[in-house]
């Protein structure tokens, strides 16, 4: 019993991180209908910025954990957001009116550029950050225990908070209304006076910021990363976005949680050798039953 509960906790934290990264895929797809293959690498860049930020803050003699974490979050989210803006500006905007395929190729190219740029500038070695927060809450269950580390608890809380703020921004603010309008009909929105280029830029920045949030949290938790770390997690997050219905914000979060839980439960209760086979089979099954994902709306062809 304690083992099943522990696997639920493992899956929930893993899933919330997948969800955070999936948001970047789903928002970009929703607004311009492209799959941003460089998104996983934006996450990877944010892992490096996290390490640099921690090093900088400790260099300036800051030792209290809350200040380091808040400072790192702030710095990383800001710098990664800037990366998101620049990437959209140089790789995607010039191709705004060409076919979807060219943008896709441009995204793959961007992903390669980011990987090689980081490899050249930071070295190809495995990098690590020191452990900042240790300790855990334990509950006795039967004769065993279920534990959640403070770090994992923080991951859950910050991701929920991040998703909450994002949902509020999209649903309630003027910026969100402009995003939704651009998503529904870009041409009509621009006729009505919305600067759609700016809205699209903003969406890229928001997506990159969410990836940065995940980047800080995961880097602090697992400690290890390299220039290739964005690939696997990017694929997983993309799967989560498709699972939940690409283009749908709550869908990305739900997809992330389902993916994380199914991986943890399958690995924990059956076999870790085939956990990816299981998650992808689940994806195929869901897409057979609901081709547009769990919460996705059936595609209406835009004219």
């Amino acid at each position, binding site marked *: 019993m304690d083992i099943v509960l522990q696997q639920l906790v493992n899956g929930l934290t893993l899933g919330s991180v997948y969800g955070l990264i999936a948001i970047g895929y789903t928002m970009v797809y929703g607004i311009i209908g492209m799959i941003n293959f460089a998104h996983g690498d934006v996450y990877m860049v944010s892992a490096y910025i996290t390490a640099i930020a921690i090093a900088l803050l400790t260099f300036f003699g800051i030792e209290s954990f809350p200040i380091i974490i808040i400072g790192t979050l702030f710095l990383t989210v800001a710098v990664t957001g800037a990366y998101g803006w620049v990437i959209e500006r140089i790789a995607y905007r010039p191709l705004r009116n060409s076919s979807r395929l060219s943008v896709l190729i441009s995204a793959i190219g961007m992903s390669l550029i980011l990987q090689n740029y980081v490899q050249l500038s930071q070295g*190809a070695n495995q990098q690590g950050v020191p452990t900042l927060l240790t300790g855990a809450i334990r509950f006795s269950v039967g004769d065993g*225990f279920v*534990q959640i580390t403070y770090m994992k608890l923080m991951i859950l809380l910050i991701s929920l908070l991040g998703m909450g703020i994002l949902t509020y921004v999209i649903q309630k603010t003027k910026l969100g209304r402009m995003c939704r309008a651009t998503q529904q009909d870009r041409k009509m929105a621009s006729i009505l006076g919305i600067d759609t280029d700016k809205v699209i830029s903003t969406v890229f920045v928001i997506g990159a910021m969410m990836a940065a949030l995940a980047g800080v949290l995961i880097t602090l938790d697992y400690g*290890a990363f390299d220039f290739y770390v964005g690939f696997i997690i990017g694929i997983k997050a993309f799967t989560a976005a498709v699972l939940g219905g690409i283009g749908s914000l709550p869908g990305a979060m739900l997809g992330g949680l389902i993916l994380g839980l199914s991986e943890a439960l399958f690995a*924990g209760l059956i076999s870790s050798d085939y956990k990816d086979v299981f998650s992808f089979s689940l994806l195929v099954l869901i897409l057979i039953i609901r081709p547009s994902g769990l919460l996705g709306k059936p595609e209406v062809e835009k004219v």
Partner: protein
Amino acid sequence: MSNMVIRKTFISLAVAGAVTMAQAEVVIGVAGPHTGAYAAFGEQMWKGAEKAAADLNAAGGINGEMIKLVKADDACEPKQAVSIANRLVDSDGALAVVGHFCSSSSIPASRIYEEGGVLMVTPASTNPALTEQGLPNVFRICGRDDQQGDVAASYIVDELNAKRVAVLHDKDTYGKGLADAMKATLNAYGVKEVLYEGLTRGEKDFNAVVTKIRSVDADVVYFGGLHSEAGPLVRQLREQGSKALFISGDGIVSDEFVSVAGSPAYVEGVMMTFGAPPSSYPSGKKVISEFRASGYEPEGYTLYSYTAMQIVAEALSKNDLDPMAGAEWLQSNSINTVMGKKDFDEKGDLTVSDYVMYEWDDKGKYHQIN
């Protein structure tokens, strides 16, 4: 038109000139993961080979010809290993190769070297299948995973008296091969593993597997794989409160193991099998002190690569720079290296394996267990 003909002639002359120039030196490839997640090992190999080549050249080269090293990066990817092996054979004209690192790269590349008549000496690939292929040109100066697994298994049974052993691997040629070899010996001792699982290379979250290890209440966790997965694994094991002893093989012999795990506190007490410390060979003292004087600590595979270069040079110089004749010669002659006298059997394995147990301490360094 005539202009073009002249230009073509000129180019072919220039090419012929370059080829003649190249024959004045002996090209030797250093193939390994110079980039990618395992680049730390590639660096160890390069440092060792570079120093050996410099020392040999200072002593007059191979039969008067200077050694020229070519860095070949396989990133521990089997496909890339094949393509760089072809490049070394065809366009670089290498006579010999020191490499590769990962067994999954060495095995496919070895066949290309055999076809091209190139001598191959790997400092690190321990999977038994490499020399079991029966290729005449392949040698290794490390042990084999079946020997390494034996040493680990007998330590677990005889010294630790462990009854509940969990066996994990990274689903790669090296990692799974090592884990399976260890498991086979363990079972021969009558100890049945309580868990046998594979994880995915490149992932960082192993909490699900760790919870499973906790649930089977393992005393010992044996992991076949490399440090980039071993680090997060041992950290998550400790975070979930497991006190199981963590034992691995020669795939974690790098300082990066500590930084990837997060802090020396997590790697303290981790054990591994690796060849006897190079400093135990009197013949290696000079090289080691020269390395240290240049500000580089010759850890892990550095001296193995140095030794591999010495063996390659000796085999080529005794056989008029004919790699395949050199390979045949190696099977029946012993060579004095910085890591002592080395003898090969007809498969290309060392006749004596020297695996011993090491332990990591609370400062993030490893020492042989006495």
